């Protein structure tokens, strides 16, 4: 519909919209994150919800302890190999539509701890990530920026066609395989559906 006509009608008190716009408008303004802190970044996440940065402006202050009531998982910190199965399990328990923000260097790639034997080198080896925010830890402003990026992403989602969200696609897979702790490493070391590169499990020669 013509934008000018829409504005003119709006002045007359008639709101014209599409279902998609209305739908996405509702979704993007009430993203409820899961109350789920992993490490250092969680403190900045808490700081973001407090008075100074006030995440409530984005309709996202309602932190839900249960994954079943949450729309957004903020991976706020280092995911260790011991924790990764639980993170994937929590993600599986979330209802669609669900989004993931990888907050901070550790959640993206292992960050400063990437050499660690017990550190998962990026959560996107197991679950899809929508927004990555760099930083160690990212400032609260960066988390707000990630929220805005996520809102833009939601706004641009069509309800039909190839780019439609997973929950409107009957063939989409909802469950993601949960890795199992093995004798030396997690098995498998990555989910080939989201992370197409094979990673050798077990150990190779010593690093130089």
């Amino acid at each position: 519909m013509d934008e000018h006509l829409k504005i003119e009608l709006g002045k007359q008190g008639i709101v014209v919209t599409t279902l998609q716009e209305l739908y996405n408008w509702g979704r993007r303004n009430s993203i409820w994150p899961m109350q789920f802190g992993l490490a250092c970044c969680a403190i900045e996440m808490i700081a973001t919800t407090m008075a100074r940065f006030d995440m409530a402006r984005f309709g996202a202050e309602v932190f839900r302890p249960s994954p079943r009531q949450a729309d957004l998982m903020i991976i706020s910190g280092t995911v260790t190999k011991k924790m990764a199965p639980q993170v994937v399990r929590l993600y599986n328990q979330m209802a669609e539509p669900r989004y993931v923000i990888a907050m901070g260097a550790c959640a993206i790639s292992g960050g400063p701890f990437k050499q660690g034997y017990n550190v998962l080198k990026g959560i996107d080896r197991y679950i899809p990530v929508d927004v990555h925010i760099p930083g160690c830890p990212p400032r609260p402003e960066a988390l707000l920026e990630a929220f805005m990026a996520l809102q833009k992403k939601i706004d641009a989602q069509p309800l039909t066609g190839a780019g439609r969200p997973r929950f409107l696609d009957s063939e989409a897979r909802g469950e993601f395989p949960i890795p199992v702790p093995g004798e030396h490493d997690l098995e498998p070391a990555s989910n080939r559906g989201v992370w197409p590169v094979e990673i050798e499990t077990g150990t190779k020669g010593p690093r130089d």
Partner: protein
Amino acid sequence: MLKTVEEIKAAIEAAIPGAGVEFVPNPGPAAEHSLLLRPESAVAVAKFLRDDAELAFDYLSNVTGVDWPDKEIVEKVKAMRITTKTVDGVEQQVEETVEETRKRIEPGCLEAVYHLYSVAKKHGPLVIRMRTENRTDRVTLPSLTPIWRGAEFQEREVFDLYGIVFAGHPDLRRILMWEEFKDHPMRKDFVEPDDYEYEPTAHDHVLKRAQAHPAAVVASGSQRWRDEGIR
């Protein structure tokens, strides 16, 4: 005033005959010398240190493990050898100095280090240590958790990361790694998983390794699921 480590050693030997405490000097500027306990008498010595009215080490601050791997020592030894030589047509036995390169393996051990303080007397630290016989099969040390409960989680951690078995510990399980894990990661010879992405850096050897690394193709790969969308 706290006695010196030598005085404490003498006090232990006077109280527990045959304790066999050894003095381990610390050459660094901190000069925190330590006492090496024998596993057989360690619990009795620890009890004495805690209960003695003057020492009163009632507070166990820190427990940790140290790995001392087997060391191969290459040394040149001058040896006397008797060789038979023909001098002026006559066979003679001559002593000769020959330099030999000898290799010997100095057996390693695992070590548990305890730092003791006294809350009652406000002194410390006293460092005591125990050593295992080797690093493979004879790795049992007595647990000091019955004396100081503060050691409970820390000894579990040493068991997890170094593989020292503490006999008499009430609940010796892995604490940081998962139960199925097989290795002891803090040992010096632990081979770490090589599964992280290498950053392109200015160091040639890292860059070369990064290009050869399987994760190097990630840049093109991770785009794939975004393009295709995850179905």
